[in-house]
């Protein structure tokens, strides 16, 4: 653990409580504004509020009031999302579908220094890989509908990482059948995520999250493969790394988790922070990343098309490849409508990109 005084405020907030803060910092109104208007997936407002409360960041009283107000609103949003989560898990249970709470309230409650330090923007649940469509159907009565129609229901049930549902309140629920899209998601033995669990209490109701180690691995996957990593993803990786010993994580690689993804996430999260324990530093130094996996991780930084191409390459047999491509080449009319495209525009786009 190191004393850090000259790192950017975003980096310092991302590691609040994980490394020694050093000298308190004074922020002016413009700097507070910049943090209050940062992208929500960065999760900085709660961390700023916590740092101000702890006397680690000094602001003018009016700015402090604005921080508290913004923080309070994010927590009100979290409470509303938790309420929706309770309804979602109840409906899934009633339909006989097992579920695991992902990210959000699971990390806030089980891993964060204090639940109020973690904001989130949606509800995330994992269902067994073959239960995505039944799960989505079971949630219709809650007023939850797919935000965009899938290319085909069958394709979604067999290949989608998740479907995003929109609630009439505007809140969103991501129903996952995998923790990552494409080959990294497909490699994971599906059953392993339901063989272990960590209980989690929300509003007096006992829910189930991924196990401690699987939450760490998921945080790494989300950070390395999720597309738009920010301070919140970085913090999740560091928080969970320090709660899980490498030896416990090593036991999970036989299930298909990628060491390359874990190594990439840890290196990214710890860059300049020095927040990882010595055991993880040693672990990183002892791993050789498979170059093919390294290239695959880079593909995840691209578009859906890049990930789909990688999955197509990994799909075995001509029948499997044809089945995978068919709905992408000829998507449902509802999917085209939700993307604002005519079939002609879609086909023309495919031909142009060949």
């Amino acid at each position, binding site marked *: 653990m190191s004393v850090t005084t000259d790192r950017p405020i975003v980096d310092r907030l991302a590691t609040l409580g994980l490394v020694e803060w050093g000298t308190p910092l004074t922020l002016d109104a413009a700097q507070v504004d910049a943090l209050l208007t940062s992208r929500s997936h960065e999760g900085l407002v709660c961390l700023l509020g916590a740092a101000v409360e702890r006397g680690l960041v000094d602001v003018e009283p009016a700015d402090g009031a604005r921080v*508290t107000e913004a923080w309070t609103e994010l927590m009100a949003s979290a*409470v509303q999302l938790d309420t929706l989560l309770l309804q979602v898990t109840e409906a899934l249970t009633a339909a006989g579908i097992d579920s695991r709470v992902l990210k959000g309230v699971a990390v806030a409650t089980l891993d964060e220094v204090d639940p*109020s330090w973690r904001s989130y923007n949606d509800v995330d649940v994992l269902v067994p890989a073959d239960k995505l469509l039944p799960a989505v159907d079971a949630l219709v009565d809650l007023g939850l509908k797919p935000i965009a129609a899938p290319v085909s229901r069958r394709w979604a049930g067999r290949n989608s990482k998740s479907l995003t549902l929109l609630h009439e309140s505007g809140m969103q629920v991501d129903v996952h059948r995998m923790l990552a899209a494409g080959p990294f998601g497909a490699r994971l033995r599906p059953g392993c995520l339901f063989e272990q669990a960590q209980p989690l209490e929300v*509003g007096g109701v006992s829910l189930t999250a991924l196990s401690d180690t699987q939450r760490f691995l998921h945080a790494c996957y989300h950070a390395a493969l999720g597309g738009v990593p920010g301070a919140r993803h970085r913090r999740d990786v560091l928080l969970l790394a320090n709660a899980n010993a490498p030896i416990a994580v090593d036991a999970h690689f036989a299930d298909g988790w990628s060491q390359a993804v874990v190594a990439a996430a840890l290196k990214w999260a710890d860059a300049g922070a020095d927040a990882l324990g010595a055991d993880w530093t040693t672990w990183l130094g002892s791993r050789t990343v498979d170059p093919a996996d390294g290239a695959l991780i880079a593909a995840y930084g691209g578009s859906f098309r890049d990930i789909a191409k990688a999955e197509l390459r990994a799909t075995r047999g001509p029948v499997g490849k044809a089945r995978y491509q068919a709905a992408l080449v000829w998507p449902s009319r509802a999917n085209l409508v939700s993307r604002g495209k005519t079939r002609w525009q879609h086909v023309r786009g495919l031909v142009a990109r060949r």
Partner: protein
Amino acid sequence: MTEMRYQRSPHAVWRASSSFLVAAVPPRSPTRITGSASAVWALLAQPRTVNEVVRELSTVANTAPERLHAHVADLVAQLLPLQLVEMVA
């Protein structure tokens, strides 16, 4: 006469810091209370009378109990109809 004891609802979904309390008993909407409500909320994890809460708070906050009593009683009265706090026998 026995003083009434209060406890926060086990069904409450909530977040708190030293500057605010946000809580709801689903499916109700969250209630937001700024200030030191979270200190009272923390004490109400166990059944307590208003006077017991005041006594504990006055020790922690180094404030005279009589200055805190109205604040605590008002807060409990505000939380009761929202079902965030329950009366305990």
